[in-house]
Structure formats: structure tokens, C-alpha cells
């Protein structure tokens, strides 16, 4: 199946279905390659799923002293190669998206490879198959544009002076940013003694 990967945090409901499904994959069974976290649970239920963004010039590979991380011709940045990886953690520290994880048990950096075993045989990645909210989506760009007219895919990110372009797209609202909803401001009684965390 030809497709691109899209992440839309605004749709994420924090259910962890992607995490659960990722750990079912045969190539890394029992270990999930997805990070799913609350942004700031005390004030919001907003969660963000993070898969590998598959950078065009992957920082993880650039900082790897053992040349263990390869980007294959289809643009997928692979998990570190076991014979080469020296478990130095450089990639873990350097990745601007915080994706690679050191599996101490195997002395190996492991990360999302966009379900290489599935996508290479025409199937969708596991996480994007099960995601019940459409926060993770795998399909054509045309499908995405048709389905989600309020959002647009972004794949260029700036971290300080570093500009990164990625194979994976992040969906952002086209118009105005998403409004933060607050219980107190929607209540009848005057909010007392609670400071608005966004003021």
C-alpha cells in the first residue's frame, strides 16, 4: 500500500491503543515503539502520540559514532543495527523529537520503523490501523486533504537553528489554534482563587 503517515495530536484521546498495538508487532514483540504522554495532565486531558518522524537527514544517524542507524531508500529510518549499535545513547539524547529508546536488556537502540514488516507488504502500520480517533493515520495525501479540510500537514520543523524535514506529517489546524477549554470559566459561579494557567 502506498501511503504517508500523518499524526494529528488534536484528535488524540490518550487511549493508548497505538501503544498496545505496537507492542504486538512481531519484530519487537512486547516492546512498544510509540510514546504517548499527557502534555500537562493537571490542567488538560491533551495527550500526544509520538512515532518516529523519519527525518530526511536524521539527527540520530548523524550523531551515531558506530554508523548503526540507516535510512533506507524509501525514507524510513530503521532501528539501530544490532551488530553495530554500541548502546552509547547519543541518538537518544540528540533526537529532537525524543523518539529513540535504549533497550538496556538488548544493548540496542530501538525505534519505530513505520512497521516495515507491514508497510513493505502493502499493509498499514499497526498503530495507524487501530487508532480509534484518527490521530494516527496512514494513507495517501489526497485522501487526507479530502477528509480533513480544516487541517493541513506540516513536515518542516525548526529546533533552534536546526531545520528538519520529515517523512511523517504533523496535522495542524488551518485556521485558528485550538481553544483551551476550562471548567471554571464555563461555570455559573465566579471562579475564585484559581489562577488561569494560561493567563
Amino acid at each position, binding site marked *: 500500500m502506498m501511503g504517508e503517515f500523518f499524526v494529528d495530536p*488534536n*484528535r*488524540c*484521546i*490518550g*487511549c*493508548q*491503543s497505538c*501503544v*498496545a*498495538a505496537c*507492542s*504486538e508487532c*512481531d519484530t519487537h*514483540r*512486547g516492546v512498544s515503539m510509540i510514546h504517548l504522554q499527557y502534555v500537562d*495532565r*493537571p*490542567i*488538560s*486531558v*491533551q*495527550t500526544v502520540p509520538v512515532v518516529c518522524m523519519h527525518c530526511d537527514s536524521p539527527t540520530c544517524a548523524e550523531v551515531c559514532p558506530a554508523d548503526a542507524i540507516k535510512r533506507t531508500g524509501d525514507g524510513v529510518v530503521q532501528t539501530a543495527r544490532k551488530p553495530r549499535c554500541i548502546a552509547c545513547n547519543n541518538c537518544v539524547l540528540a533526537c529532537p523529537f525524543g523518539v529513540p529508546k535504549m533497550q538496556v536488556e538488548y544493548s540496542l537502540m530501538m525505534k519505530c520503523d513505520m512497521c516495515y514488516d507491514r508497510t513493505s507488504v502493502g499493509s*498499514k502500520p*499497526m498503530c495507524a*490501523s*487501530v*487508532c*480509534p*480517533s*484518527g490521530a494516527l493515520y496512514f494513507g495517501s495525501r489526497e485522501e487526507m486533504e479530502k*477528509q*480533513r*479540510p*480544516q*487541517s493541513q500537514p506540516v513536515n518542516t520543523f525548526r529546533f533552534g537553528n536546526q531545520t528538519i524535514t520529515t517523512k511523517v506529517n504533523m496535522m495542524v489546524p488551518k485556521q485558528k489554534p*485550538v481553544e483551551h*477549554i*476550562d*471548567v*471554571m*470559566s*464555563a*461555570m*455559573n*459561579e465566579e471562579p*475564585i*482563587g*484559581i489562577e488561569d*494557567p494560561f493567563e
Partner: protein
Amino acid sequence: MEGLRLDTGAEPDRVVNTHCCFCGQQCGIQLKVKDNVVIGFEPRYDFPFNKGMLCPKGVKRYLQGAHPDRLTTALQRDPSSESGFKSIAYDDAVARVASEIQRIQSAYGNDAFGVLSGASLTTEKAYLMGKFARVCLKTRYIDYNGRLCMVSAGAANKKAFGIDRSANPWDDILNAEVVLIAGSNTAECSPITTNYVWQARENGGKLIVIDPRITPIARNADVFLPVKPGRDVALFNGILNLMIENDWLDHDFIEQHTVGFDAVAEHVKQWTPQRTAEVTGIAEKSIRKAAELWGEAKTSFLMHARGIEHHSHGVENCLSAINIVLASGRIGRPNCAYGTVVGQGNGQGGREHGQKADQLPGWRDISNPEHRAFIANVWGVNADDIPQAGVDCYEMMRKIDAGEIKGLLCICFNPKVSLPDNAFVTRALEKLEFFTVIDFFLSETAQHADIVLPGSLHEEDEGVVAQVEGRVIKINKAVDPPGDAKQDWRVIQDIAAALHRTHGFTFDSPRAIFDELRVASKGSVADYFGITYEKIEAQNGVFWPCPSDDHPGTPRLFEKDSWNPVAKGSGPFYFPDGKARFNVAAYRPPAEDVDDEYPIILTTGRVVSQFLSGTQTRRIGPLVDQYPEPRIEMHPKLAAKYGINDGDETTVESRRGTITLRAQVVTTIRPDTIFIPYHWPGRQSANQLTISAQDPVSKIPEFKVCAVRMQKAEGRMQK
């Protein structure tokens, strides 16, 4: 309890197309099977409702069958054993059950033996349980755990529409201009529906969410209405009042297709925006904004769930919500919709065919002589021999406590965890002279049984269920029950045989039961006559009613010029005049409101990784890890008042019980309300605190509101 973890990766022998065993969405799923064990799953992309999507419960459900707790033999209570039980031969266990039924019924009368059943059973089994109680046991006392789930919505639907089913397929969410979600933690309790709602927003739709908490679906709401628990009638009446004031009404629809509008309009005059704001605790501007969005919309989908239904006025809550749908005229057309979000796997089908206290198959009324005669004919019994209506499941507990019911058979129900004020439930269960449970794990309720019979898991049997949209789908068998465990319908028939009452209990397959059910439902409101296993397979489900072989089913109810067996062509609604009913919904406060002694509102609900009383999901390791124990969710303002910090052990006390759990301090809940999820047993059970007040019509318990007090815990928490 640790929960099970399995290595995946083994190559399956085969892959079975079926559905998830948990909630009312009934997502399509493929189960991988090797050596008669379910070893994994694959997304089922071809099933139109979920297209491969699953929540974490669905992803990890395959782990349940291989759990070491799986019951593989019958058990007999044995106080000398460490577990409290010893294994016995299945036939001996069935013989003991039969002899106790006979002993109790001859000593105290047929009604002294009761049956509790469940809405996670397939429709075939649910049908069989009703028939078993009425024909084999000849007892009036049967009820089911749908009493905790869908009954308020069901009663309101019958009063307003004459039929109890979501009126529209979920595709009607996608292009609705306004989606109004009342009392549904959609993202956690019916996760796949989220995608429909988000898609509606992408298509330009607006979202209104009514909930005391900002759940993940509320996070993206255009209008969020943080209602004070128990005040939904006031809110809907207030919205209707604004609709009338601003003439946001469909006068033609009201005139042609409804009755009772004037009385309702008169009644809601008192619900001025200001009074509505005062009673509901919602800002007046938010109420006005919601009413305007709803009022001016051309298309809409209103859906509600347990949040407005679990109340001592749950039926009124639902009726007041339906009133704003009827006033808008937006029903019975594409993208003009109303639905109730069912909770249990067969929450819809399990409430249609006769396991309710007052119901016969095909939604027939057990007190209606014509209905009794029809079913008596199908069953080959004398209509006079069918018992009259029994009572709801909580009232059955009271009758056990009062000594009226002496013996009980329970299947697919864990009342010790799921019923309110469960200290009372435990006391009642201990009073039974004889108690038998059919289950696949030794649930907290089964631990009180004299005999436990090993039944079947979802993947060990076949049959149909009706999911949230009213779509009847087919569960396919993936593996055989292990050891002495048997499919539940076989266990029931074995008991009938041991009682020497086999008449009507000699089915050789779920298909044979289904064929009788089709006939029993023929001509009724819930007509399944035209549904076959083959048609379900061919169409990816069949929406009931489906009265004949050549009928494709009815995805959308109440369409213009549609025919139904009650209206017989006079209109689209299921009343003799074909018109829908407005119902006056008078506001009543909750049964137990807060006071100086118990000043905080407790509300209860679910988390995404657990399901109902947790019998299955508390045994699945990764789901346990995701949310290991219940927490007390509270606003920082409330926490500060009691000197409680996030993570502090905190004691909550109601007039019925006490619980100590860790606090979760978040701004996403009203400051006058705390929330505790209810999936856990024993000292972690939220239902130690809840109140057994019930709706007078639906008999649903008021899980969503009771009064509690709170303090930082002294000493250590106990599990």
C-alpha cells in the same frame, strides 16, 4: 492481580473474523488461533463500523482465554480448601443445581428461585435465559444487568418514539452540523465513535459536550457545558425554552408528527436562562451559546449515555433531551439523528428478547394477553403458565434479603462489584440458601456461590449481538471451551435436562435458537424474522427491524412514509397515530443531595483500559498496567480546601461506605464534584459508596450522584 502477558509471534493455524468481546460498538476484529488458543489479533479493515480501528481493550482482549484463572471444571464451595472451592465433576455439579432448584421451589414455591442474566450474552443466550426462567423454572424473577445500563434510555425511547433503538446509523454523525453529546465519556467508553465525531468537526460541524468533567471528547468541544451532576433536566428544559423564545422550532414537524408540545412548552417557561444557570451550575452565556448552535442548525446528532441515564430521574433526563430533538424536527432524515450510546457488548440486543423482568421476546409485554398468547404458541406452552412480571435486579436483591427469594442462578453479571451500595449486595448473597453462578472466571460474585459452572468466553461460541447502531452482527467461534467448560446455552439446557424439564430446551446450536427467536420476534417492534446468519455475513450486519427475507433491514428509523407494525402506515413513529410524543420532564434533584455533613458530589464512571466490573480486563496485564488502580479525581480548589496534594491517600465516605485511594488533582472536573472509576472490587470498589436510589420507571440506580465527605487519609491504604 497481575494480569496475563503472552509472547506474540507464533504463526497462527487460522484467523477468525469476529467482533470484540467488550463494549456496544462491537468492532470487527480478526483473532489469530493456534492449537485451540487465541494467540493474537489482526485489524479487520473490511468491517464498515470500525474499519480496523480498536481501543486498547480490543487489542489486548486475546490474552483473556489463556489466563490461568480460566475455569475449566465445575466448582463446589469447600470451606476447608484454601481457595474456598474444590473441583467437582460437571455432571455432579449440574445434578446438585437441579436438586437445589427442586428443593427450593417445592418448599417455597416457584418464585423462590430467581435468575440474574446479562447483556454481554449473545442474543440467542439472552433469549434462552428468558425462556428458561419462564418455561423451565416457571419463576417470575428474572432480570439482567442491562438494568445498570440502558433502561433509562430504553424507557424514554419507548415513551417518546414507541421503539427503543438508536434512530440512526453512525454515518449520520459525519455530516451533522451540530453534534451534541450528553453524559458520554465517548473517548474512553466508546472510543471508535470519537473518529466519527472528529470527522464531523473536519466537515465543519460544531460539537457541544455536556459533562461535569472535561473528558477527551470534551477537550475539542465548541461549547462545553460542565453540568452539575443530576441537573440535566434543567439544562435541556432551559435549552428548549430558549428554542421557543427564539423560534428555533420546526413548526411543521411538531404539528404533523408529534403530540404534547404545548404542555411541554408551558412547562419549560419556568426554565429561564438565569434559573437554568443557577440550577445546572453552568454559565448562562454557555447555555445561550449551546441553545443557539443547536437551535439554528439544519442538521444534528444528539447522543447520550450513562451520564444522563444513571439517575433517579434518568428517564426524565432522556425525555428532556429527546424533547429538544423533536422540537428541532431533526430526526428521521440523513444527518438528522438521535442515538443512545450502549455500554455492554449486547446492550442493545440483550434488551430486546425477553430477559428483562417485564418483557417477552420481540419487545413484547409480559402483561399483554395477546403478547403472552403469541409467545406461548411459539414456546408450545399454555399462556396462563407463563409467569407475570417480576422485579428489577436490585429489587431482587431486596427480596433475597427479605427471604422471599431463596435460590439464585447468575450468569454474565457481577453484582458484587457492579451494583450500588454493594455491602448490602454482599449481605444479600450470603443469605441465599443456594446460589449458582455460570462464569468463565471466578468473579467476586461467583466467590459467594455454592456451585460454579464453567461457561464460555465470547470467542468460544457463536451467535448474534445488536451493536450501538441497532446493527445485528455475528460473533464467530474461534476456539472450543477448555476442559469441562461448556457453551452457556448447553449449561442451561443441561440444567433443564437434569430437572427433567426438557420441553423447549433441546436446541443443538445457536442457529437453532436464533431460528426460534426470529419466529418469536415476528411482527413485533423488534422484528428479526428476516435476519439470517447468511444475510448478516453478506451485508456486514443487518439493522433491525427486518421483517422479511427480502427486507434489507432498517439503518435509519422514522423516515418519512416508513411503515411500522404499530402505526401501520399512519406515520413514521411507533404509535397507533404514527406521531412522536413530547413528554413533560419535571426537574427533581438527586435522591441524595449534598449537605453540611456530606458536602461533595461523587460521580462514577469508566476508564478506557477497563471494562465494567473488570472480571476480564483486570486479568489482562497490559490493561492493568495502563491504569493499575482507581484514583479520586478532584479539582485543585477542592483539594486545597482539604489539604490534599496529587497522589495523597485520601478517604472518601458516604452514608454507606468508605474508600481510601490516591488523589488525582486536575482542573478538568467541577470543583464541587469528585470522580471515581468503578471497575475494581473489595476495598477499591466505588460502589461501596454509591446509593441504591432508583428511577421509578426504569429502575436504573443513581450511580452518577451521591453525597460524600472527604479527608486526607490517616495510616496506610488497604487494597
